[in-house]
């Protein structure tokens, strides 16, 4: 029998460790001048350095160091005066060199923290996530497993390697053990990755697209009986490619661990892969121990020793923190706490801000993003930011409503059509022939027809029973195919029936 989550957290205390990998958006790779364009044809962005050819020598991308230091500063880290690169040796064809250049015992940033807010039974609560380290490394190539089950490594007959991604600057951000979250562990994990993503986006150092893999999260989860003061054996779940999956993966692993522990079995320390479709995890390769990687200092690269003046300059140029920015926008737009939380939760803050910057009224912009567009995003099970309608298009729709050229109802049709890929609002309106029926004579004709069709209802309205007007207005809207402004119809109808 599957355990319920409530049952699990009543008896076990979870501990988390989150490793986030973020691909930097530099023009070139970490150690060579190859381009880093996403989706380029296979092996068109490689050179002797990133292919690990004999005699080729790496040289560090200055911009990548700068971006990493900025990330460290934004996460309240100390910047190491002198840090070094190390070789992480392993035999796996995703790196042609048989090693990955990374940092080991001397990461460039250490000891930071990030505060995240989570809605609890007692209201919003801040959890401080301590950052162990931020270090630089290079991304690996992409494998395509051929034969056997589709795209899966198990049973594949051979693999095909594309090294375009090999060598792209990758920054790994590792938390210390996160405990004392209790039952909120899944929400805390999600809030952390979300806040981190917002910070990285505000710094402009990465595209932070989880679905394209430029932001990836590995979630380490362990359970121990409440009050034992111990840490249980952890599993590491990879392949967690959306914020929603972070939460699902942590919750799923907690339930799986508890099931094992209840039966007196051991949790195996291993890497597991998150299955997007089922929300479960599947066992991956058994994890090599750190000593198996035989880390040693990279002899082909010199240490990185950032100048203190440079660090202070970078610190002074950091952008407004997302949490500070949210508070400022909330005050500016005069949004109640609860609505602001909903906006943050839905990932709508940036979208609303851009829409407002394009001239839309903040309340109207918020209404569309949190209302109809969120509803359509939920239906399609995608993040709000992935819905294919832009702030510019929303601003245009708000403008058309304001100008009386669209009613709310017609605007919803336009929104749905834009999202369905039928073009921008103006071309959708032109193509569908959508227009508000503002020609009063045709409205009056429709109203007279409604009154003639429903004489008894009309009589009730004449006698002052206003709620009855709804049926007549409905008939008029039907007659005009929803293209009339309902408020104007009501006005005219009540006028006709002597109730204006």
């Amino acid at each position: 029998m599957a355990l319920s989550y409530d049952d699990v957290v009543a008896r076990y205390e979870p501990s988390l460790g989150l490793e986030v990998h973020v691909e930097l958006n530099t023009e070139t790779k970490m150690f060579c001048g190859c381009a880093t364009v996403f989706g380029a044809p296979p092996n068109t962005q490689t050179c002797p350095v990133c292919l690990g050819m004999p005699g080729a020598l790496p040289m560090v991308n200055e911009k990548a160091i700068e971006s990493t230091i900025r990330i460290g500063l934004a996460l309240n880290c100390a910047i190491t005066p002198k840090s070094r690169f190390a070789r992480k040796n392993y035999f796996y064809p995703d790196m042609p060199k048989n090693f990955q250049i990374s940092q080991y015992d001397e990461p460039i940033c250490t000891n930071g923290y990030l505060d995240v807010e989570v809605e609890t039974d007692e209201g919003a609560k801040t959890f401080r996530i301590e950052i162990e380290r931020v270090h630089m490394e290079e991304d690996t190539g992409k494998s395509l497993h051929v034969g056997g089950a589709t795209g899966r490594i198990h049973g594949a007959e051979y693999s095909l390697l594309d090294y375009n991604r090999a060598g792209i600057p990758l920054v790994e951000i590792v938390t210390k053990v996160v405990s004392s979250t209790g039952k909120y562990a899944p929400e805390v994990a999600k809030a952390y990755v979300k806040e981190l993503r917002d910070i990285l986006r505000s710094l402009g150092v990465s595209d932070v697209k989880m679905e394209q893999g430029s932001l990836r999260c590995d979630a380490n989860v362990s359970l121990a009986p409440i009050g034992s003061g111990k840490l249980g054996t952890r599993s590491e779940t990879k392949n967690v490619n959306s914020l929603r999956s972070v939460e699902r993966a942590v919750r799923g692993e907690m339930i799986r661990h508890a099931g094992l522990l209840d039966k007196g079995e051991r949790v195996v320390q291993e890497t597991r892969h998150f299955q997007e479709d089922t929300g479960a995890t599947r066992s991956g390769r058994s994890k090599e121990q750190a000593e198996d990687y035989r880390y040693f200092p990279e002899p082909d690269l010199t240490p990185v020793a950032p100048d203190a003046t440079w660090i202070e300059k970078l610190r002074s140029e950091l952008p407004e923190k997302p949490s500070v920015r949210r508070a400022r926008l909330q005050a500016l737009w005069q949004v109640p706490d609860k609505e602001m939380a909903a906006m943050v939760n839905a990932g709508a803050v940036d979208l609303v801000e851009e829409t407002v910057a394009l001239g839309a009224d903040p309340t109207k912009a918020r209404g569309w993003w949190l209302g109809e567009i969120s509803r359509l995003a939920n239906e399609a099970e995608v993040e709000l930011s992935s819905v294919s309608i832009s702030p510019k298009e929303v601003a245009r729709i708000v403008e058309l409503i304001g100008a009386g050229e669209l009613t709310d109802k017609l605007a919803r049709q336009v929104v749905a059509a834009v999202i369905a890929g039928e073009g921008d609002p103006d071309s959708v309106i032109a193509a569908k022939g959508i227009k508000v029926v503002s020609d009063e004579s045709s409205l009056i004709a429709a109203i007279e027809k409604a009154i003639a069709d429903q004489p008894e209802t009309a009589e009730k309205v004449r006698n002052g029973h206003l709620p009855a007007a709804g049926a007549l207005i409905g008939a008029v809207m039907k007659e005009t195919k929803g293209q009339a402004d309902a408020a104007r119809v009501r006005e005219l109808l009540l006028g006709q029936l002597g109730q204006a």
Partner: protein
Amino acid sequence: MAGKSRISRDEVARIAALARITLGDDELTHLAGQIDGILDAVAVVQEAAGTDVPAMSHPLEISNVTRPDLIRPSLTPEEALSGAPASEESRFRVPQILGEEA
């Protein structure tokens, strides 16, 4: 110095597994002795520097050798794949990965 290192057969087996090399029983015994000999020979270097000499990872006392973030031409896929024993669809073709898990 001779005979100071002691690499067990088990350690050789572990290293071989990490390197994805299959070794027979006689080879493990043979190599354990050989690796001992190699380590003993290299260990002589440790005598060259006293405790007053700090460890170093680079022969030159320099740091911050960097390059600007400017794109340089890459190889063509044909050039990149020219030395590959096998390729398919502009990709390097490699044998089954992690056969032990299949």
